[in-house]
């Protein structure tokens, strides 16, 4: 396989191990005074009380909001096409059969 000659998963594994070693090095040089369960682990928000866990979690529908807004012109018709009605699924099917048959016919003519 020509495409695999220059790429070897073992190299990736070695790179991964080296990366883990570097991370471990950074981590071992961190603050030794850190202790779990004390005020150190609490969220600090300028002295305010932090919001609930419910509020802090970024929900799935908020992620990539800008992406969907930018591609609104693509997404609106696409989602509208996914009607969820079984009859429409069959319409797509017979359309595709018709288109394929017509293409094969045209190619045969030329």
């Amino acid at each position, binding site marked *: *396989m*020509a*495409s*695999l000659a220059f*790429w070897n*998963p*073992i190299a*990736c*594994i070695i790179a*991964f191990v080296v990366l883990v070693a570097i991370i471990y090095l950074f981590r071992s040089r961190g603050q030794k005074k850190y202790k779990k369960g004390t005020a150190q682990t609490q969220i600090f928000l300028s002295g305010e009380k932090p919001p609930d*866990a*419910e509020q*802090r*979690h*970024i*929900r*799935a*529908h908020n*992620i*990539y909001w800008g*992406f*969907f807004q930018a*591609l609104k012109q*693509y*997404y609106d018709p*696409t*989602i509208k*096409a*996914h*009607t*969820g009605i*079984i009859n*429409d*699924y*069959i319409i*797509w*099917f017979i359309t*595709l*059969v018709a288109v*394929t*048959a017509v*293409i*094969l*016919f045209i*190619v*045969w003519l030329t």
Partner: protein
Amino acid sequence: MHTLVAHSAILIIAIPLLAAFLTPLISRVSKKARDILVIATLVFVEFLVIILAKDIYLNGIHIYTLGASSPSLTIPEHYMVPVRIILEVDAMSIFMGIISATVSLAATIYSISFMKEETGGDRFYTLLLLLVVGMLGLEFTGDMFNMFVFLEILSISGAALAAFRTRFADALEGGFKYIVISAVGALVILFAIGIFYSQYNLLNIAALAQAMQYTMLDKIALALLAMAFTMKLAGVPMHMWAPDTYSVAPAGTTPMIYIASQACLYGLFRTCFTLYGVTLNTATIGWIVIIIGVLSMFVGVTMAVHQSDVKRLMAYHAISQSGYMLLGVGVGLAVLGNPEALASYGREAMSGGIFHIINNALYKGLLFLTAEALFFRLGTRDLNKMGGMCRNMKYTSIFFIIGALAISGIPPFNGFTSKLMIYESVYRFNPILSVIAMLVSIITLASFTKAFQAAFTGPALPQYKDVKEVPKPMLIGMGILTIIIIFFSLFPGLIVNSIVNPATDALINQATYINAVMGGL
């Protein structure tokens, strides 16, 4: 041992069938015996598939004539056409067979703990075994009508399984959509079989391929067959049933229904490459396959990013990944009539596409199982309601990360290998297609980041404080797939050379397939 190998093709189909008939009787006696029977059957099938695969890679195509006085007597003495049903297992069939058997085994082990909390377990396992029979039969048969029969077994058992959780209205809706799509598709395929029968009075694939003249009627049959199989494998724009069905199917069966649709992909390839082969205007149909593939990749992934239901998200990714296979193999099909281009990049594109089938079956199966694990513990599929599951479900989140990295094509995981093969070879065919494929890969990563962020990271939510890790059988099921993924990631060259390239050659060399039955007549 020799006898076992000689009969293994039929035993792979008949043993799970026998077990399926036995399951309702056994489960009246003992539930435990039933579970053991099902698992033992699937382990035995896996074993048979492996020894059959070994035999095929050593000795070439395996032929089994049902009901004749000898398995190799394909054509009756002093006659010129095959009359009986012939099982014809070549490297491509056994490649699909390995996928089906492996994923089914993992998914069934996974299902055991799910079934402890549901009623109707004996029916569930019966249908599960019948689904395995349908897949393996579709892949191994060498007869058009027999293929239709197994397609129906696969569809009916798949639809019944998808509707298994009858307490939810959407489960019934998903099952109903699946069976309507399958019924229409299968009837269209039967119509095409009738067209072949009217012209050549043959039903055997190899004999039909030899007799094929590519008349006007054959063109009509090709359009019907190709589109019916494409609908069954959920190619855009006939993909809309797939998210509905995959998202409602109960634990463990989602990967199997997905693999069943991959068996229909095999049906499409068998039709295009073996049945029609070079008699067909391959560039035309190749381009049709490529366009459907590109559309599937793009529409699938962009719709996936938008989903907030975790299983729908993965179902759209399943559609998108099928696009890669269609693209890779479609490029091979488009240059089939051009030996120079085929040797320089067409064959590698096909290898990439076919390698992607097995990679995708593994990691997509793993991802479906992790999604089902979330549903099993949280009782919801809505990503908006999840969060912080890393703390409660450590192993599941590790499995999810591995699956997500593999599907997004991050090195060193196996998804990268096959995608790289597709990118490289497709680039030499048409650079734009390759660029779209890479873009889709990036959006895939983005959407899995979203799913991971929403479900697994974030602060511990109070309502899920008591959520525990999923039970052991589920972890074993996911673990099997993970181990195979890691193995495939470490030794891609070995896999490509030993099982993928023979499968590619089996598709390209139509004459070998024909000669195995017709004996060079």
